[in-house]
């Protein structure tokens, strides 16, 4: 009896690296399927929600493909991993593109680094986007951190960061001029700002932990 991991493809970003990485670490009875199909998402045992690009384009594609409901339902029911934009669009609102309403799974906003960096006096030293390896400090213990040392580095490339209203959601924190939330967790949802598929062994381990995570 095989188990399905759906990787949601809403046309924003190349998914080859994510799906290859998942295939590499998946358990022997798990199948990884890249899909935009709502039925696949409802039938899947686990859902990975990646994404790259601007918030407005991500949200408009998700809506166009009628994926909002299936995604929110999946987020209620089964292990759900958001990556990069797949984390940002879970919030209520993003400041990107003059303001975009997002999926509102987690109350909170998505803010631009630029403003904060200028305020902190780091302008000229810290560039946008935040691109490169950076440390992630574990703010709560979680099965997805199994085997990953606190403060180990992951690979980031982003200009906006999430600000959840409820601090209890914060699972990981990183510093780039300011301390920002780099991972959030609640019940069966875990979402990360960094790219586990480009974060070498620790990234693969996080993905593997996700494939083993039973809620």
């Amino acid at each position, binding site marked *: 009896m095989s188990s399905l991991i759906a990787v949601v493809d809403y046309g924003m970003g190349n998914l080859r690296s994510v799906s290859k990485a998942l295939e590499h670490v998946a358990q022997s009875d798990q199948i990884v399927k890249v899909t935009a199909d709502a039925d696949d998402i409802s039938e899947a045992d686990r859902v990975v929600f990646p994404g790259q*690009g601007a918030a407005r384009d991500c949200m408009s594609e998700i809506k166009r493909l009628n994926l909002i409901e299936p995604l929110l339902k999946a987020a209620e029911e089964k292990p759900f991993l958001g990556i990069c934009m797949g984390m940002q669009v879970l919030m209520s609102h993003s400041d990107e593109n003059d303001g975009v309403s997002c999926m509102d799974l987690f109350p909170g906003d998505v803010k631009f680094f630029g403003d904060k960096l200028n305020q902190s006096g780091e302008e000229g030293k810290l560039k946008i986007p935040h691109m*490169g*390896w950076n440390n992630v400090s574990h703010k709560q213990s979680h099965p997805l951190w199994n085997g990953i040392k606190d403060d180990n580095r992951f690979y980031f490339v982003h200009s906006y960061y999430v600000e959840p209203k409820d601090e209890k959601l914060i699972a990981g924190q990183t510093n780039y001029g300011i301390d920002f939330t780099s991972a959030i967790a609640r019940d069966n949802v875990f979402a990360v700002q960094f790219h586990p598929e480009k974060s070498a*062994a620790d990234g693969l381990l996080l993905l593997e932990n996700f494939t083993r995570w039973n809620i």
Partner: protein
Amino acid sequence: MLLIPAIDLKDGHCVRLRQGLMEDSTVFSEDPVAMAGQWVEAGARRLHIVDLDGAFAGKPKNADVIHEIADRYPDLTIQLGGGIRDEDTIAGYLDAGVNFLIIGTQAVKEPHFVAEVCAEFPTHIIVGLDAKDGKVATEGWSKLSKHDVIDMAKRFENDGVEAIIYTDISRDGMMKGVNVDATVKMAQAVTIPIIASGGITDMDDVKALSAVADEGIMGAITGRAIYEGTIDLKQAQTWLDEQ
């Protein structure tokens, strides 16, 4: 995606080669420090410096110019390759303000050296793999090995390198376009970011790489194209930042 201008040093001058051949070199400037300034003015956030003489000799040959560039532009991120073969050389350049050291030949000759220097100088090491028809070349590209470049790249994934620079030798300096397919294959095969290099000629190439950048291509090094003016660095980076 970052567009990274290249300054290749030969006898203290800023040159461009064709396919890495020292005999086929054009001097673009006798003042590499001024050249660096020009790229900083144009908005470069990172500079790629190659000590060509160093690559052939196996040790630094243009250190004074490099030190001067690092001094003059402390906010500029600098990645340096060419003859980086031992820890003292790395330590010296880090002290001078260079941000990343690129290990090429030594990574192929003694792969464990990469793990060692990553442990000693964490966050400061990049591996540069240069390939012709998928096989790795070393020592200023004067020697072609039998190693497959993707297999080689995967050896360093978990050492803690910042990225792998993948250069297609046959395209380098030739203004014939970048090898997008090979670059994508490399990006998909490794679990760390790569930096593309070799053959980026015009905005079409920049756009082609940008389209696949999310496979893990964090940057693209460009040389001849910005020196001959077929790419405007400022315009290109502005376009990239809008993607």
